[in-house]
C-alpha cells in the first residue's frame, strides 16, 4: 500500500514550485539539486541492507541556457503532474513525452523520451514521492507469476481473487503496474524462483517445477520492472519466502540479479522499497560453465568491459562475486541458462536446480 496520498503528493509538487518562487523573489539564480546517479555515488546503507545514493549532487541551474531550459521543463511537468493528481488520472512516461509536444511553450517541450523519463526520476528524488504516486506508469508491464499463491487484486473494475496456478492459463498471472494493490490471501509455497528468460520459465512450467517443488516462479523478463521487484520484495518480506534468482551466465545478467538484490543505480533512492537484500544467486555461475562443460560463446569486448566495470561496482565487490568474475575473465566464456538443455531437456529441473538449491539450503 502506498503511504502517500494524492493530496500529499500534490502538496509536495507545490512545495517544490514554492522553492523556485522563493529563489526568484530573493534575486537568486533558480536551481535544483539532485543526487548524482552514477556508480561512483552508490553507498551501502547498513541498516536497510541496500544500496542508496551518496552525498554527491548535480545542480541544474538557470545560469546557463541548458539549465534554464531544464528547469522550465521541470516546472511545466510539475504543473502537469499536479493537475493529473487533482483529476485523479494517470498516464505513461511515453504519454508525458508526447503530451509535452502539445504545450504551447516551445522551450518546455521534450526532445526525446529519455529526457522526460530522466526528469521524472529527478522529480521523484527531489520530492521524495514515487512516480507511481504521481500516477505515472512505465511502458513495461510487470512480470508473470506462476505458483501456489492466492491473491486479491484491487482494480478499477472491482476486486479480483486469483490463484496463480488454478485461475490462470499457461502464461501465468500478470502483475499490475502498482503491485501494492495486491493483497496476499494464502500460499503453499516454499520459495520464490525468479527466472530471467521466457524460454527457461516455460521449460520450468512445462516440467511442472512449480508444482513439484512448491515454487512461485516469477518471470523477470530481462531487466525487471519496478513492479516485479516490488512484488518479489513483498513476497520475501510478507510471506517470509526465500528468494533465488536464476539467470544467464554473463555480466548483463549479473546486473539483473543486482537490481533485484541490491537496488539499481537508476532508482537507488527507492532501494528500500524495491530491493530484496537476501535474494540469492543460483546461476549460471562461471564455475557451472566449467563444471557442466556447457556450450558457450566467447566473451565480446563489451562483455569484458562490463565485467571489469562490475569489478569496480561497489555492489559486486564481495569475495564471492570477485572470484566468479575473475574466473569468467579467465575462461573468457559466457553461457545462457538454456544451454543446460545440452544435457537434456529435463536436466535443469531434474539435476541442476535441485542440486543447486539443495546446496544453497533452500530445499
Amino acid at each position, binding site marked *: 500500500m502506498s503511504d502517500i496520498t494524492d493530496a500529499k503528493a500534490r502538496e509536495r509538487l507545490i512545495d517544490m514550485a*514554492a522553492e523556485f518562487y522563493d529563489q526568484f523573489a530573493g534575486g537568486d539564480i*533558480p536551481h535544483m539539486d539532485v543526487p548524482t546517479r552514477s556508480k561512483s555515488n552508490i553507498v551501502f546503507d547498513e541498516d536497510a541492507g541496500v544500496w542508496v545514493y551518496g552525498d554527491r549532487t548535480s545542480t541544474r541551474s538557470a545560469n546557463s541556457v541548458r539549465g534554464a*531550459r531544464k528547469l522550465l521543463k521541470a516546472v511545466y511537468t510539475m504543473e502537469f503532474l499536479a493537475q493529473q493528481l487533482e483529476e485523479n488520472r494517470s498516464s505513461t512516461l511515453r504519454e508525458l513525452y508526447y503530451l509535452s509536444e502539445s504545450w504551447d511553450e516551445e522551450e518546455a517541450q521534450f526532445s526525446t523520451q529519455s529526457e522526460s523519463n530522466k526528469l521524472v526520476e529527478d522529480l521523484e528524488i527531489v520530492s521524495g514521492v514515487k512516480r507511481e504516486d504521481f500516477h505515472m506508469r512505465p511502458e513495461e508491464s510487470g512480470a508473470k507469476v506462476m505458483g501456489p499463491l492466492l491473491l486479491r487484486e484491487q482494480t478499477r473494475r472491482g476486486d479480483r481473487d486469483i490463484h496463480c496456478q488454478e485461475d490462470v492459463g499457461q502464461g501465468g498471472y500478470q502483475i499490475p503496474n502498482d503491485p501494492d494493490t495486491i493483497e496476499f490471501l494464502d500460499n503453499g509455497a516454499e520459495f520464490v524462483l525468479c527466472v530471467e528468460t521466457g524460454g527457461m520459465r516455460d521449460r520450468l512450467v512445462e516440467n511442472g517445477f512449480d508444482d513439484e517443488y512448491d515454487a512461485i516462479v516469477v518471470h523477470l523478463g530481462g531487466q525487471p520492472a519496478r513492479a516485479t521487484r516490488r512484488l518479489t520484495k513483498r513476497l520475501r518480506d510478507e510471506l517470509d519466502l526465500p528468494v533465488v534468482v536464476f539467470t544467464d551466465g554473463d555480466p548483463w545478467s549479473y546486473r539483473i540479479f543486482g537490481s533485484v538484490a541490491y537496488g539499481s543505480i537508476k532508482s537507488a533512492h527507492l532501494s528500500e522499497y524495491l530491493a530484496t537484500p537476501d535474494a540469492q544467486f543460483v546461476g549460471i555461475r562461471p564455475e557451472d560453465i566449467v563444471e557442466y562443460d556447457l556450450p558457450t560463446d566467447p566473451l565480446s569486448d563489451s562483455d569484458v568491459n562490463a565485467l571489469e566495470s562490475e569489478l569496480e561496482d561497489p555492489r559486486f565487490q564481495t569475495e564471492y562475486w570477485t572470484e566468479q568474475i575473475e574466473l569468467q575473465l579467465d575462461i573468457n566464456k559466457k553461457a545462457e541458462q538454456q544451454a543446460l538443455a545440452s544435457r537434456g531437456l529435463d536436466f535443469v529441473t531434474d539435476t541442476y536446480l535441485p542440486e543447486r538449491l539443495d546446496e544453497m539450503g533452500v530445499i
Partner: protein
Amino acid sequence: MTSFQSTLGEEEGIAEELAESQREISIAEFFEKNKHMLGFDSGARGLVTAVKEAVDNALDATEEAGILPDIYVEIQESGDYYRLIVEDNGPGITKEQVPKVFGKLLYGSRFHAREQSRGQQGIGISAAVLYSQLTSGTPAKITSRTKGSETAKYFELTIDTDTNEPVIQDESETTWERSQGTRIELEMEANMRARSQLHDYMQHTAVVNPHARLELREPKNHFKYERAEGAELPAETEEIRPHPHGVELGTVIKMLNATDSHSLRGFLQEEFTRVGAKTADSILDAFRDRHYGREMTWSVPREGVSEAVTDAVSNKSGADTEAFADALGEELADADRVSFTDIENAVDAAADAASEETGTTFGDTVRENVVDAVWTAVTENRDDDLYGFVDDATSVQKDDATVNGISWRIAEKFGEETPRDRLLREDLRDFVVRAAESIEERNGVTVGETSRENITERLWEAMRRVEDDVPLAREVASDRDAARDLLDAMTSVDVISPPTNCLAPITPELIEAGLRKEVDADFYAAATRDADVHGGDPFVVEAGIAYGGDIPADGTVQLMRFANRVPLVYQRGACATTQTLKGIGWRNYGLDQPGGSGLPSGPCVIMVHVASTNVPFTSESKDALASVPAIEDEIELAVREAARELKSYLNKKRSMEKRREKQNVIADILPKMAHKVSEMTDREDLVIEDSLARIMNNVLVESEVTEDALTVSVENHADTNADLDVTAIVDAEPSDVSAGSVVEMDGEYFLKWEPTVSGGEDAELTATVPDGTDCELSVDGVDAEKLTVNQ
C-alpha cells in the same frame, strides 16, 4: 636584322649600305612603337594610365609646394574619342617649363632623386600626351597659372617623335578662374570598359592620400572624395645619398669621375650615406686586401740575424756595424713574426737609432742590403712555419707526412714566385690548390675542398695587411679593376642601414582615416613597420584592414595595393603583395580561407602600402611589385600586425553575440518559469530582474522611489570593475544629492553620478525627492549586453 655571311672582297658594300639606313631612334619613337611598356596597350587601359599620370603629377606638385591637394578629373565623350581633363590647385608650371614637362619624354626632376616619389621616372604625363596625339591627332591643351600672375598661360602642344622635343602649336594668355594651378586637356581613343578600374584607382588614391580632395566626373557617374578631417600634408622627404651596398660598378665609376674629393677616403665619406671615418677606414682596409694583397709573415730566427747584418754591411766599421746589428736585434726581439715590410721598418728604425749612437749614416743601399739579408735569413725555413699553419688548419686525419708534403710545396711556391711574399688571396689559394693537386698526384692523398679552404684561410689570417697608400679617386675611376676591388670592399664591410628620412610613410592614424572615409565598415586597424633595407634602398611597409559594415560579405576580400602612394590597379595576380597575402593562414585571424591558402573571403578590405626610394616592379608598366624576400617579409609582418587586431575584434564580437544569445534565451525562458511557479503557488507575479542580472554576470542598476527618497543602487555581479555614468531624470527638484551633480533643463532635473564599482560590490546614490516623483534611468560605461537596468 638579317645578317649576311659576306665573303671579303665580293660584297663589300653591304655593310656600308646597311649602315646608311641605320640611324638613331628617338626615345619618343621607341615608345610610340612600344606603348604597352608604359601601360598604354588598350583603349581602356590607356585612359586609366593617362588619368594616373596626371593625378600623380598633380599630387606631387601640390605637395611639394606645401599645398593640400584639390584635384578635379573629368572624362567627356567627344564623338569617337574621349576627352580627359585634369585640374589641380598646385603652384602652376612656368611658361618655360610647360613645353618640357608635357612635351619631352624622360624629362623630370624625379629621375635621379633618391627619395620616395610617385613617379620613379619622369616619363609619365608626356607619354599620355604622346598617346593622345597618336590616337586622336589633336594636340594637348594646357592651361597653367602661377601664383601672383595676372593671367594664365595657354598652350597647345604636340611631341616631335623624331627629336623628342615639344612642338608648340599655339600659345597665348588667357583668363582663368583659378588663382593658381594647372589644367590639362587630352583627347584620345579610349573606351569606358575600364570604368571599374578607373573608379578603383580614384577611390584607392583617395584612401592613400587622406590629405587630398579628389573629384571624378565621367559620363555615367560623379564621385567626390573628401579630405579626411585634420589630415595634413605628408612629411617632407629628404633626398639621401646612395648606400655602399646599393650601387653597381658603373655607378661607382661614374661617381668617382664626378666627385670633388681627391682621396678615396674623402670620396667614400662624402658621396655615400652612413659612411663615417671608421667605416671608410674599414672599407679601405678591405680594398687594400683586394688590391694589393697581404704579406706573409715568418718567424724571426733566433740566430743568424746579426750575422746577416754583418755580412751585408760593408764600408762600415765593426763597431758601427755591431751597433746596427744590436739595434736591429732589439727591434726584432719583440716581434713574433715579421713580414717584409716589418723588416723594412725595423731596419729603418735600427739604422736611425744606430746613426744617432755612432754618428755614422746608414744610407739606402746599406739598408736595402740589410733588409735583403735579413729577409733571406728569415725565409730560409718557410717550411717550419707553414707546417704549423697547415697542421692547425687541417683535421687530425691528415698525417704528418701529408702536412709536411703540403707545407714544403707551398714553401716552394713562395720561394719561386713572390717578391716580398705579397699575394692576393686568390693567388694564395692558387698556391694551396696546386700544392694539394701535386700531393694528390704523387702520394695519392686527398686534400679536399674544405681542407684547401681552411688552409687558405689560416694562411691568409697569418698574413699582414699592407700600409700602402691607396690610389686617388680619379685614378680608381680610370682603372676598372681597382674600381671593382673598391666595390667588393664596400660590399664586404658592414654598414648601418640607410636613414629613412627619405621616406614618408602614411602612418597608422592616416591609413585608418583614409579607409574610414572611403569604406563604410565596423572595424578599422592599421600598422606601420619600421623601415628596412633591400639592396641598399630603404623601404617601409604599411598595412590597413577594414571589416564589416557595408562591405559585401560574399566573395574574396577586397585588396588595395599601393607603391609610393600610388594605387596598383592591374596585374593583381603577379604582384608580390597578393602572393604574400595568399600565403598567410587567415583562419587563425577569423577569416574564411577555403583550403587554408589563397585569398581569404569575407566582408573585409585589406590594404598594403610599400614606400621606397626604389620600388622593385615586375615590368616597366609598374603594375605589380617584384618578389623581393626582404620586402615580402615586411609585408607579411605588417599585415599580421593589423590582422591581430582584427582577430581580437572578431573574438570579442563573437563572445558578445553569444552573450546576447544567452541573454535572449534566458530572458525568454525565465519569465515563463516565474509565471508558472507563481500560478502553481498562487502567489503574486514575480519581478525577476535581479535573478537575471546575477545570471548574466551583469551590472544591475535599479531605481526606487519611496516616500521621500530616491535610491539608485548599483550591483556589480561581474568580477571586473565597472566605471559607470549614471543619469537619473526626475520631474521634481531633488535635494541632498549624494556625491553627484544636478542640472536642470526644461523643467526636468538630471542627476549625474560617476561611480566606480568593484566586481562583486554594490553602491548607492541617494537623493531626497517629493513623494510620487517619477524617475528615469540612463546608464553609460558598460556594454548593453552586460547591463541590466530596472526602473
